[in-house]
């Protein structure tokens, strides 16, 4: 198969680099780990580029390749001493104190989640519907619904515990 033009691919990546950088930031803390992840994602996108169908939404295709690349790499890494969530890796709190800052709230949420859950939450917050999330992550729609239900429940419980404790 003829190689797709590199110039067009570079422009595509630059236009959508925010998606790639965000995914790397959610999963990796150090600059080096993020760079490794970013380069792996770009390589996988390049390999998949010839099969990309123009009728598909480009951002959805990037999310699919990027998230699956990161999740596959994480599963293959036997030891991840430097891999930490956004903020310092601390034990999961028994309760979640509410914070005013939106970004801090998001950090709290990310610290709560496992690798697969992070992928679900990223796509949910991006506004994808359950059937689209299922397609992107290659899982069933009912699996998506169940996991999202559990995540929502987990958050609700943690905040409820906080409210009960502070009364």
């Amino acid at each position, binding site marked *: 198969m003829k190689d797709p033009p*590199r110039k067009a*691919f*570079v422009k595509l*990546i*630059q236009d959508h*680099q*925010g998606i*790639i*950088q*965000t995914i790397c*930031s959610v999963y990796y803390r150090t600059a080096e*780990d993020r760079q*490794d992840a*970013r*380069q*792996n994602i*770009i*390589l*996988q996108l*390049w390999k998949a580029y010839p099969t990309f169908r123009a009728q598909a939404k480009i951002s959805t295709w990037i999310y699919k390749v990027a998230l699956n*690349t990161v999740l596959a*790499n994480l599963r*293959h*890494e*036997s*030891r*991840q001493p430097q891999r930490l969530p956004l903020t310092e890796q601390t034990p999961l709190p028994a309760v*979640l104190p*509410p914070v005013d*800052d*939106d*970004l*801090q*709230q*998001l950090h709290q*949420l990310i610290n709560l989640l496992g690798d697969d859950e992070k992928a679900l*939450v990223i796509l*949910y*917050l*991006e506004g994808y519907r359950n059937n689209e999330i299922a397609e992107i992550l290659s899982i069933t729609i009912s699996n998506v619904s169940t996991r*999202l239900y559990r*995540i*929502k429940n987990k*958050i*609700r419980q943690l*905040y409820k515990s906080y409210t009960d404790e502070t009364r």
Partner: protein
Amino acid sequence: MKLDDYRSGWQQYKLMNALSPLPEAEILQCLDQQEPRIKGRSLRSRSFSVYSFSLILLIAFIQSC
């Protein structure tokens, strides 16, 4: 606090990450890469080679006995 309450934070986070542009040179460098960068890969490959070599020696030893 509900999952939907995090949407505003998510939008801020995305904007923050979109601020630093990816240099063209880095993207082009990725295209010329043949293998994905996986931490510890070389170490695991080496362990596997040592394991294979030990296995061959063991088989050879058993056969010679």
